[in-house]
């Protein structure tokens, strides 16, 4: 396992930022999503060994999370916010960060050139970072995370502020890293399509808890015993009619989920005709990550309330 936590809790005064979190994240590319205040940031800080847990235990790439330095030796962190030293050149900063990570001077410089070429900052590497565009700064942030060749990359909102072309380039780079053997990625992002395009596994947090985790494909395909029906028209009335016909129906934000049983398809079309609705889709449940996310958050909020 890449990350394992057991009843991990971190409190700040009265606030339980991470609340009894138990996750088992496998190796590979993992998406970490959740609404603001879900505990993602605190979880990342715990993973980086920058916070000591209030209670509970956790292991990251074979180390206890309270070990700090050995953990950070194996992690490359790309922060969301601007953090580059403006008066340094691209190659100067990346090699400097390599040295602070423990590379010797020559190796750090050689690696800095390699990773900057990889991310596509070539001619500009000798210019001061203050003169870089947002896209180039994002690439340099990626390069500094790569320079010491860590086993685990933690990307925090890596496409923030990028134009569509820059975003596509960045996603291509992240995808390439995620596909590399023995290299793992934790991607924290609000842009769910980004997570969907890179990650194989996902962990969804809300209120410091894990509300879903698992293989993305399995989560998005939903339960096999459910039928997804998208209708144009009055969804609530549609659902009510089906319930009256003895079906188990859940009306979601985008469609209806109905427990499969014999004759359900005929009942769906009969109901549609009766209330004048149009069936746009009927079949296996295939959700986008955004739909899954909204559904889980709503369910969690209802449960909490």
């Amino acid at each position, binding site marked *: 396992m890449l990350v394992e936590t057991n009843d991990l809790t971190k409190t700040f005064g009265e606030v339980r930022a991470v609340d009894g979190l138990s996750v088992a994240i496998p190796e590979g590319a993992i998406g970490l999503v959740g609404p603001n205040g879900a505990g993602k*940031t605190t979880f*990342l*800080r715990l993973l*980086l060994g*920058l916070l000591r847990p209030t209670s509970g235990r956790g292991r990251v790439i074979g180390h206890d999370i309270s070990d*700090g*330095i*050995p953990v*950070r*030796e194996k*992690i490359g*962190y790309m*922060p*969301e*916010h*601007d*953090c*580059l*030293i*403006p*008066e*340094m050149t691209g190659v100067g900063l990346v090699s*400097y*960060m390599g*040295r*602070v*990570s*423990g*590379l*010797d*001077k020559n*190796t750090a410089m050689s*690696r800095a*050139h*390699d*990773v900057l*070429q*990889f991310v596509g900052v070539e001619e500009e590497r000798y210019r001061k970072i203050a003169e870089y565009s947002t896209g180039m700064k994002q690439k340099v942030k990626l390069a*500094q995370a790569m320079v*010491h*060749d860590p086993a685990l990359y933690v990307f*925090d909102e890596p496409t923030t502020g990028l134009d569509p072309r820059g975003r596509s380039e960045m996603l291509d780079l992240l995808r*390439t*890293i995620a596909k*590399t*053997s023995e*290299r793992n990625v934790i991607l924290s992002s609000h842009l769910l399509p980004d997570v969907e395009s890179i990650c194989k596994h996902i962990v969804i947090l809300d209120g410091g808890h894990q509300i879903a985790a698992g293989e993305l494909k399995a989560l998005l395909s939903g339960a096999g015993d459910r039928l997804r029906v998208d209708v144009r028209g009055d969804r609530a009335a549609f659902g009510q009619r089906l319930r009256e016909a003895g079906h188990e129906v859940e009306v979601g934000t985008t469609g209806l989920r109905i427990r499969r049983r014999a004759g359900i398809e005929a009942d769906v079309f009969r109901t549609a005709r009766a209330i004048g609705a149009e069936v746009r889709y009927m079949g296996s449940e295939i959700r986008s990550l955004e739909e899954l996310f909204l559904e889980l958050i709503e369910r969690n909020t209802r449960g909490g309330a």
Partner: protein
Amino acid sequence: MSISLPTYTRRETPLLGRSKRVGAIITTGLRRELRRPASIVVTGIGAALTTISSILIVYLAPFLFPGQLLDLSFFYVPASNGAILFFVTLMSAVVGSGLIADDLHSMALTLYFSRPITHGDYVLAKAAILGPLISLVSVLPLVITPIVAALLGFFPWDVALAAIGLSILAGVLFGGFYTAATLFLSSLTTRRAYAGAGVFAMTFGLTFPAQILASATGNSVFLYASAWENYLAVARALFGAPQTTIDWPPALAILLGATALAALSTYARMRTREVVAT
């Protein structure tokens, strides 16, 4: 194994220890400071003027201080050279004020603290950048002066050597205080100008009022508020010059205590910094 482009190859290399990582911060920091024109000018002028004025004091001692004994106690005179106070303050403001404030401003702290170093390593490295530069004014002139005095034949070498040792002690004490205090002020703000102003305020806002209050009230206890007066009291004791105003043991305790407090406060400030933005 290649990730994608032929120019990037995965290479797992053994990482060097923490001392090398801290060393990298120090050497890069010193190189950056020594490339800044303001740092070069202030360091150069400060070291040169302090050294020259201290040597002149020795050379002109018979005229300037008639009756002054030409023994170890004489070296209190260059150690109390006001140019030291002025240039240590100026160097702290110009060089040291941005050492942490600039990292706070650019949010580069995130880069440092997500690396395999501790908060203590970071603070230590910053102190190791500023300390040697301040010592070019607080220690170097006091070391050169006895050597020149011995070379000119004004003092025997054994006295000069003792003066060198004591000068290093006094200079390190004073420079250490300014290093710690400047880094603390730098850790309080994202603007180097504010930290620089704080250094001046600390020096001149305490030294002159303390002297004025002490002289107006006739109570020398006010002088303990001034780092410079505390340093002078310790320097007098070290060189065997007659004590005149305040006692050296409390003065030493105040200087050491303030230095330790500033260093610990800086460390505590760094511990509270958010690395992963919320």
